[in-house]
């Protein structure tokens, strides 16, 4: 967790990242800002899936409505979508909400092509 770098799964949303760079290493919930934003990194493929999984696990039980920022996502594959789908489904079963933030053509396309848009609660048509 402590040595996370860009491209290994998740990182802070851009605005808050710099300000919290120093304290990040000591925080346990390093990927959420107080407002509850979880930002997906550019690479959400199987190669980076271990980091993505641990990132998602950290915010799984985040009690407030969690915003998931997908704007940075450049590359995503079935493994990435699968993780996110499992995450969303489990949040739902815990009665916790999420909210999608930002747009990413790669993300929307993958979610629709794999038929998980409904599972993720994405709008019917990609925005």
């Amino acid at each position: 967790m402590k040595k996370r770098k860009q491209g290994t799964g998740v990182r802070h949303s851009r605005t808050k990242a710099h300000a919290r760079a120093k304290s990040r290493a000591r925080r346990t919930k390093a990927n959420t800002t107080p407002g509850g934003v979880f930002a997906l990194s550019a690479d959400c493929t199987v190669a980076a899936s271990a980091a993505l999984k641990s990132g998602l696990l950290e915010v799984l039980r985040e009690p407030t409505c969690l915003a998931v920022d997908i704007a940075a996502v450049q590359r995503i594959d079935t493994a990435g979508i699968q993780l996110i789908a499992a995450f969303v489904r489990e949040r739902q079963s815990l009665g916790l909400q999420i909210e999608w933030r930002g747009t990413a053509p790669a993300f929307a396309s993958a979610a629709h092509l794999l038929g998980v848009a409904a599972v993720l609660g994405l709008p019917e048509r990609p925005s």
Partner: protein
Amino acid sequence: MTVDLTQFHDAFFEESFEALDSMEAALLKLDIGAPDRELINTIFRVAHSIKGGSATFGFSDIASFTHSLETLLDELRSGSMQVTLPMSDLLLKSVDVLRAMLRAVQAKQPVDAQRVSDLQFDLELMIAQKSAAPAVSAGPAAAPAASLAPSASQAPAASPVSGAAAASIADRSATGAGGPEPTTPAGLTGRRWQISFRPYRELFARGNDPLRMMRELADLGHLVVRVDTMALPPLSELDPSECHLAWTLELTGDVREEAIRQVFEWAEGDCELMIAQIDAGTTTAALDANSAAAGARTASAGTSASAPASATDNATADAILSAGPASAPAVAKTEGASKADGPKADAKEGQVTSIGDSGSIRVSVEKIDELMNTVGELVITQAMLSQLGAQIEGATAEKLRAGLAQLERNMRELQESVMRVRMLPITFVFSRFPRMVRDLAQRLGKQIELKLTGEQTELDKTVLEKIGDPLVHLVRNSIDHGIESPEVRAAAGKPAFGTVHLDACHRGGNIAVEVSDDGAGLDKDRILAKARARGLVGPNDQLTDEQIHELIFLPGFSTAEKTTDVSGRGVGMDVVRRNVKELGGKIELRTERGKGSRFVITLPLTLAIVDGQSVAVGSETYIVPLISIVESMQLKSSNVSRLSGRGEVFSFRGDYLPIIRLHELYGVEPHTRNLHEGLVVVAEGEGRRVGLFVDDLLGQQQVVIKSLEANYGHVEGVSGATILGDGSVALILDVPGIIRAASLRAVA
């Protein structure tokens, strides 16, 4: 989810441990100085088959070690080295190390590399000391094997999408992706395909990404995607490198099945794939009668989840589709059914589905065998009753006979249903090939396309388990010897991609499995030269093509110029033929120089029942398996000649075939000894034909095979026994055995 490679791993480990036991036993029996050739062959075969299996599954350590071992054993076999005490010690140590390696790999523990490399060094030292030209060392074999490990980093390479293209594709598929009903949008023409795509967990690890496939499908036509997330575990337990999703897709457009298959080409063997064409009527009906479809689902779950695509299956798939993600139990049921197909698959994973709420149960093979046996006994009892019934006179006789006729019908159905329980689609064997072919092609620098057809052909589990190894040998041979390198192919005006085709189909009561390639074909001249060099054929003997083809089935025959990790020690083909024969089948070869070769294996669907021709000799009845019979005829005395010292022959289609008098063979008093008064059954085996002289033909019937070995002991020329309707026992002839015995006698 069901048939992952671990299933084959289990079989491989089981077989390997057994083989090592027999290797150990053989080694212990081996006399220093004067070794028995058959023992050395046995030991060699063990090493060879473990090498083959481990190479297939990517256990490169084991493959490399066994290669060294095999090289040493080959020296022994060819007689260029003698068995010494230190060597037999070394070989026994190798057995221990192999066992340890197999155990380690099985338990997914690291292999004791130091111990292995020490021993491998000793083996190679021994080879180097004794033989002037040191044989291939394990070094080069290990290096390419290491590259077999699937690299996870292959996957992302397929992912990047250009934004615009992605958006438009998503737009096309979006209509269906979220909506609950699979309606065909107006204006769309062409065929509608229903695709059930259930990847196995390792799909990602093989470098496959369903997303890429969906994208390709969406390019073909209008795609509606339904995802099944039932198998998706909680996030904390989710292994992100495993695929837990499954999909049901509907594709509409002017698309050929071939094109769809092509999309899934690389995933073949890593998923359960079902493609069926649906027309509008079927779907609507199925959707309307949802409950009926649910019934059909249970039915199909009860028999086999991978039954060929039929109307019922369409309905089933539609039911799942129409219910969508909400119908969790329905989807789970289908999955449960497919689990039952691979009884071994999950045992070791500890992920057994609960029996109560799935549409199927897992039953041990022993129980089914018991059932099978009881049904066999019932069939015999029923036949006895029928015969008795035919003799009874009187008022109630007619009613009795009607009842017996019904009993017979029901019995036949019962027998068929029980047999079907044991039937599995051959895809269980085929699915290991895509990986193997890919790896081999890579290692040999060849471009090979593997075509699989008829994967849904069902056959008995026992047959299925035993046909795997022969097929592996044949496919390896095709790739190693058959398909040429791309340059050679180009020079010959062939496409750079060589094709290896595996096909299975039912032919009568048999299943035919075909391995064909468009490679170089067999080089008759080279085979002949080799056979002459080895003294298998006299220098001036003229052989027919068929006789030349026969040569490759001889033990120790190989024309490969150098032995490789893949094949080329000539153990393959004789083992293949022996295995096929043990299953009561036969193997045929067609080949044309420069065009390719084709091996056709014909196998009985089951080992429990044989189609036989019953023949009478004196007061005895014998069963000749139909598969051995060419034809039956009455002889004219003018056709028969007597050769001094070599018995009688008769002319048959321009050929002279020896006559074997069954009454002499079995010491029975016949009704007639005059050849023209009885009949001759022309039977084939070991590539040769003979005429079996019998008194009369009685009729064709299916008989339940009772093992003679289990109940009495092995008898030469008899493969088993059966109980006839009147309660008497009839022996089932082992035609190849009879021919072997007869030719031995003729030589002596």
